[in-house]
């Protein structure tokens, strides 16, 4: 149905895609795999007309598609759902779903009743309980994703591209999505599915195409492929141990929360203890307020109930500056918005939370700043031309290393990691896991928030499962399985 022939694309002399052949059959789910930077995103952009290839052709139903534009791609029935929802935050759900699914003729009259009904229908089809009149900006990321899926559904897509659709979804929402993908497949829609979560690929895909460094590696049936083999194809080498070994040394309790809560965000009655050298995994569905818990502990949304003790002393953490002074660091979930300041240099980002350490009487000492940045760059083997390069020129994994370096530069005793490996390719992911293990071995107390269950199980000493704004249960590593974590998160109060 859809055929790409020898597609090439260069960005400013850097080869993004080189002679890629690709075909999609109606009614199949075709996985697209590869590390970050392998060229998957560029390929998607070419399909959706966001960028034009330098050479190569694209045929849809044996018809040549010339001068593809976003508008044209939509008209041809190619719809894409990206990692970050591409919605209009200030507009309503109905407007987002049903307003621009026809050609945007400026002088066409809008039939609001019809649009609203259509939005409601589409939402019902994916069993999303959303009012069409809600403003999108007031929705959570996961719910925004639902809006986007409904929108693609409404666009009557013949080719549906899903680019990391489950990154922000709960398990149940993801299952719901898989069901929808299955239904669309049955309708004869060709689905291109991109995900870093390999089990999803095995569960969903019929065929798979692997890209590496802008080149086509293989296209084959999913059947007969195993995970290790797929990873080998993606990285070009076999990854032996996915999760690093952990040392068993534990220190004193450094962070303790006793019935702490924050009314504004709905976190309540949170109790746990965290020891030096320990990794406490925090799991839970989206909406269980894991990120809000991190924000409370870091003073972004200060706690107004219960007690928080750091190294035994009761503290009030009212803002991040106080948190930093107490030795608490937070590597936030939204890397690009919160984790780093994109246009600033690696050096400036590395020292941003510890400027006092590289200054004297308020005056910056650029030599010391560079030295600090260089130290962390070497330690993390961050790939960059120089520590003066803007962070926006780095890949996602390297940006995450800078974000991590910023907090380690504050010399913390407690580090909160919120989804540290989200949207990062397999190679960099393993590297970051190794770093985390090293840090814990060095005596750092770590709170690891992650939606990736294998990651939680692979990294944590204990696993706290959150549900509806509080910690439901804390499991020891030996007791925790994907199965029971999920059950607790979903609300079955299985005694641990």
């Amino acid at each position: 149905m859809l055929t790409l022939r020898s597609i090439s694309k260069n960005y400013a002399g850097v080869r993004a895609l080189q002679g890629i052949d690709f075909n999609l059959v109606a009614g199949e789910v075709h996985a697209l795999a590869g590390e970050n930077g392998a060229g998957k995103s560029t390929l998607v952009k070419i399909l959706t007309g966001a960028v034009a290839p330098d050479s190569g052709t694209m045929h849809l139903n044996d018809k040549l598609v010339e001068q593809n534009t976003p508008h044209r791609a939509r008209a041809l029935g190619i719809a894409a759902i990206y990692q970050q929802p591409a919605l209009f935050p200030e507009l309503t759900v109905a407007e987002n779903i049903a307003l621009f699914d026809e050609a945007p003729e400026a002088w066409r009259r809008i039939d609001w009743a019809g649009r609203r009904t259509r939005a409601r229908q589409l939402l019902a089809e994916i069993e999303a309980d959303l009012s069409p009149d809600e403003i999108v900006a007031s929705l959570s990321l996961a719910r925004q994703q639902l809006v986007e899926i409904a929108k693609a559904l409404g666009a009557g897509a013949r080719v549906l591209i899903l680019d990391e659709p489950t990154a922000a979804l709960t398990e149940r929402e993801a299952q719901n999505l898989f069901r929808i993908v299955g239904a669309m497949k049955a309708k004869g829609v060709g689905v291109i599915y991109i995900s870093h979560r390999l089990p999803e690929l095995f569960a969903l895909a019929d065929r798979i195409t692997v890209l590496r460094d802008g080149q086509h590696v293989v296209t084959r049936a999913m059947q007969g492929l195993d995970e290790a083999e797929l990873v080998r194809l993606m990285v070009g080498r076999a990854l032996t141990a996915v999760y690093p070994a952990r040392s068993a040394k534990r220190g004193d309790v450094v962070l303790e929360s006793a019935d702490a809560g924050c009314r504004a965000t709905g976190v309540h009655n949170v109790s746990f203890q965290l020891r030096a050298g320990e990794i406490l995994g925090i799991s839970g569905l989206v909406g269980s307020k894991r990120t809000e818990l991190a924000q409370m502990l870091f003073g972004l949304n200060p706690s107004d109930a219960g007690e928080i003790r750091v190294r035994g002393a009761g503290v009030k953490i009212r803002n991040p500056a106080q948190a930093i002074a107490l030795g608490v660091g937070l590597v936030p979930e939204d890397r690009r918005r919160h984790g780093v300041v994109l246009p600033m240099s690696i050096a400036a980002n590395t020292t941003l939370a510890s400027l006092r350490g590289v200054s004297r009487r308020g005056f910056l000492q650029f030599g010391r700043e560079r030295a600090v940045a260089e130290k962390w760059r070497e330690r993390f083997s961050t790939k960059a031309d120089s520590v003066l390069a803007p962070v926006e020129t780095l890949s996602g994994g390297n940006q995450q290393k800078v974000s991590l370096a910023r907090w380690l530069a504050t010399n913390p005793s407690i580090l909160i990691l919120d989804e540290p490996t989200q949207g990062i390719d397999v190679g960099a992911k393993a590297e970051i896991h190794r770093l985390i293990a090293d840090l814990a071995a060095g005596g750092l107390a770590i709170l690891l928030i992650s939606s990736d269950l294998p990651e939680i199980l692979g990294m944590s000493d204990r696993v706290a499962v959150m549900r509806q704004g509080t910690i439901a249960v804390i499991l020891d590593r030996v007791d925790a399985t994907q199965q029971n974590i999920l059950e607790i998160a979903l609300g079955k109060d299985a005694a641990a």
Partner: protein
Amino acid sequence: MKRDFAVLGALVSLLAFAAIAAPTFFSAANLRDILLANLAVLIVAMGMTLVIVLGQIDISIGAQFGVCSVLAGMLAKAGCPAWLLVILLLGAGAALGSLNGLLVAHLRLPSIVVTLAAMAVLRDSLRWATGGKWVQDLPQSFQWFGLSQRGGEWMLSLVTGAILAGCVYGARYLMAGRMIFATGSDAESARLAGIPTVRVVFWVFAFMGALTALAALLNAVRFPEVPGNAGAGLELKAIAAVVVGGTSITGGRGSLGGSVLGVALLAVIGPMLTFLGVNAYWEQAIQGAIILVAATTTMAARKRT
């Protein structure tokens, strides 16, 4: 629209206060005069709302207004028939606006800088060209488009009302209007949704220019001569009205109805203070305070929702 409540509340309480303290304020003649004096602001505030919804701003409209006023006078003096004058003037306004649009949309320069430059260039060019002279000895047919005074007033109000209705309708019920809101909300998403964002920005600025020209014309015909410094400070009045009306300065969110209320609020303050016998010297301070109160209560209301 919840966010209109704050400005509506400010307006209502101000009017209620006037009703007690100076009931003569509500004479038909006074309200008519206030309306007529603010038709021009009302019209440009419509355009300004759309510009600000796009996340842009246009501070050159005062200068554009001056240029268009003088141009209208000169055309009329040259014996240009009314229908042709309207067309030529709207064309000239649209051309001035599209110059801004070209620089903002196609060269992607920040609109505040572009229109700041346009303001300086237009104001000084006009001053240079006219030397501050007024356009006088206009033909009889110029004032009120040759109608009687009452007829002319009706005509101006109706034209403005039609523009208002057209804008409100278009913003809600035409694809073009939603395209503006979508572009202002998230330009990248809009582009992906197939909206020609560059053209949207360009045309909104051109439309702003045409509206400014129309406002200049409607204002000019109320008088038998055209001064050389017309439109001074118009941009600040319009921007203040729009933001007091609850349109978000960061784009994507705004309402034309709110802007109408904003214009109304700012329009009644001045005359009302005169009616209340407030010393003229304190007027500006009181205006500033009311803008601050309206804006902050809007913010507070928005925070709560």
